[in-house]
């Protein structure tokens, strides 16, 4: 097994003014499960394809283990790939599909057989070994594609949206299985997805990308609780973090955040940071996650200085939780996640308390998190 190191990696396509990937620096540790996540066109797949050797690196160095592999062909990089558009070899049965790479590398028949059967057992496809791909379901095909990668026992697995062709239920199952599998095999894995739930549940670390730049690299918890900018804060979490534009002012020895329909007090610890950084009197963006807006009487009593009043546009009850779509907190709709047993209904006016200890404030111009930079 080995780590992967990217040093100042750029990808520029001929005729394009802007680089598709800009100055990517990453040190992926041995056995780590790293997820590259971001919206379409952010450069995550291009980065993975450069690691795979399917795209030339325009600038920078790529190491797998201690070996510089910029000019090494994919087959010689000791990696195994599973891509969104994985295609099984249609004229071979499942066994032959999994054995092909090993056969090419001149493994002994007995070794090939051992590896294929072991991988098939792990993936629970032993009973399918004689079948041709067209006689398999989508989930089974996906397992065979994984099996083809596993038998190689590579230094690194590269996966590009491997679950996106599966339906939601199967995707959930396979997500857990891939996580279990890579932990069991202890193989370094780089996984690309646009789905932040996949990223949050699978990754040891997550790299959030936008417009070819890395925005933040951190553990899922760190990303969720300490996003460095508005983009990361908005991208990670579902429903997304709410953003309310407003301004900060000093009043009676306290720092207030004011916006349309909002006048709440910033806790002293955070207020001190705002004062020291000179944000009092300036425009900022308040970021608050849906679960940090409370309707419980106990919370309202305990937080009299952060109470807002809002009108419930829609109350969506999912059973275990309820989403309130609220008007009156700033100019845009704000979503609150409350207990599913709540009796709140559409059209009602409600008092809610914002947990300002969990709130984030972003510089209006740079969009950076004031408390994290």
């Amino acid at each position, binding site marked *: 097994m080995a780590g992967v190191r990217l040093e100042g990696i750029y990808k520029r396509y001929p005729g394009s003014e802007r680089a598709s990937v800009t100055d990517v620096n990453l040190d992926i540790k041995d056995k780590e499960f790293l997820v590259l996540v971001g919206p379409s066109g952010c450069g995550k797949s291009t980065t993975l394809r450069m690691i795979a050797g399917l795209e030339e690196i325009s600038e920078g160095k790529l190491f797998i283990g201690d070996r510089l592999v910029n000019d090494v062909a994919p087959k010689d990089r000791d990696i195994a790939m599973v891509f969104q558009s994985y295609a099984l070899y249609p*004229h071979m049965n499942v066994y032959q599909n999994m054995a092909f790479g090993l056969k090419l590398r001149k493994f002994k028949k007995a070794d090939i057989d051992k590896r294929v059967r072991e991988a098939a057992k792990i993936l629970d496809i032993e009973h399918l070994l004689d079948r041709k791909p067209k006689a398999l379901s989508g989930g089974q095909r996906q397992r065979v594609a994984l099996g083809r990668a596993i038998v190689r026992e590579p230094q690194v697995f590269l996966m590009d949206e491997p679950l996106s062709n599966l339906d939601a239920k199967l995707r959930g199952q396979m997500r857990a299985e891939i996580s279990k599998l890579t932990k069991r095999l202890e193989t370094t894995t780089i996984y690309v997805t646009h789905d932040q739930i996949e990223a949050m549940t699978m990754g040891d670390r997550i790299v959030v990308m936008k417009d070819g730049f890395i925005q933040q690299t951190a553990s899922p918890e760190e990303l969720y609780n300490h996003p460095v900018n508005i983009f990361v804060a908005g991208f990670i979490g579902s429903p997304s973090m709410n953003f309310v534009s407003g301004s900060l002012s000093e009043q009676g020895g306290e720092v207030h955040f004011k916006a349309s329909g909002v006048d709440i007090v910033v806790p002293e610890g955070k207020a001190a940071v705002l004062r020291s950084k000179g944000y009092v009197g300036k425009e900022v963006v308040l970021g608050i996650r849906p679960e940090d807006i409370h309707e419980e009487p106990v919370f309202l009593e305990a937080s009299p200085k952060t109470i807002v009043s809002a009108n419930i546009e829609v109350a969506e009850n999912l059973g275990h939780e309820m989403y309130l779509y609220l008007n009156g907190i700033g100019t845009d709709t704000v979503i609150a996640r409350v207990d599913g047993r709540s009796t709140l209904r559409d059209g009602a006016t409600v008092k809610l308390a914002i947990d300002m200890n969990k709130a984030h404030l972003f510089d209006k111009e740079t969009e950076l998190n004031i408390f994290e930079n």
Partner: protein
Amino acid sequence: MISLDLQKQLEYILNCSVVTSNRSLEDMYKFMGPSFENATIEKGQYIEGDGDVWLIHDLHADYCEIIEFIGRKLNPTEQQLIVMLIFNKPSTIVDNHYAGMSKQEKQATKLGEWLQEQIDRGTTTGYIPDHLVLANSFYNDMLPILLVADGSTQLKGSYAELDKLLRSFLSEDALLIPLGHDEWLIWGPMTLLKDEEAELEHEEDETTEDLLTNIVLGLHDMLASEWLGESQLAITYPNAPAKMMIETVTTLRESINIGRKFHPSSNIHLPWMLRLEALLYAIPEAQRQKYLEQSLKRAELFVEPEMLATLDTFFSLDCNVSETAKKLYIHRNTLLYRLDKLKQETGLDVRLFRDAVLVKIILLLYKVTKSY
């Protein structure tokens, strides 16, 4: 053939009779004896028979133009000088070109050169000359695939390596012909299309197009992980290489060319999926641009990346709203909102067949114009 003057001069210098003739492959076999089986036949090559020497002046489908030196062996210097005189280049150049190649590669390379020569001349149909037929299977139907390696300029694939890989992957009967720079023609056996088990169970499930697509997708995946990386591939319907090779190469090249222009993110180019694109590409560039300019004036919205991706997915899923929303990971209402917005700004409702056709054409033209 050579001029009478030159023929007379050669006779005078070499002090032997020099004649020109057209000889069939059977004549060549008789002349050379058993060594004919392992011999390669090429322009500028000398072959020796019983007391005479023949110089191959030109190759045709079923015969060769020969210059015969009667009753006289030629030493290497004489051979070189004569080739220089007749072909206006040293014979070593002819030889070095194929140096180090196996017999199979040499034959395949010659066939590739002949193919290119025919295409350069504007020939669109024609049989392969008998001496260039690589295998008897060329007279039966085979699966043609064109491979163009993308990838790094520093990584070059050798014929032997790719040939071995394809034989392992497709079949021992697969044949590889190098065409140009990083371009290869592959002929796979028909057994790839036949699946004994499936024939017994449910043969009606997959169309020929499905089968061909699956083969080329699998091949693409295999080449990406086991060869030099990314490549462009085109496949077309089975045919007999001996009589259809020129047309096949032309069709496959056109598919890759048109496919890359209209669908640059795709690596698999299927002629039956590119019919509308081929038709649009045949329209003169000026007219295409004029039509596009007129259409785009009505809305810049078409070319916004989000709208482009939405419409591409919508059309690829046969204008199915639910499936498109699912594929794009957006709510159905979000998709409907985008389609309504397009209708509002352009007057075109892609949920109606008539408008969908127009928008599809505008999108295709935009892609190809953008790539100029």
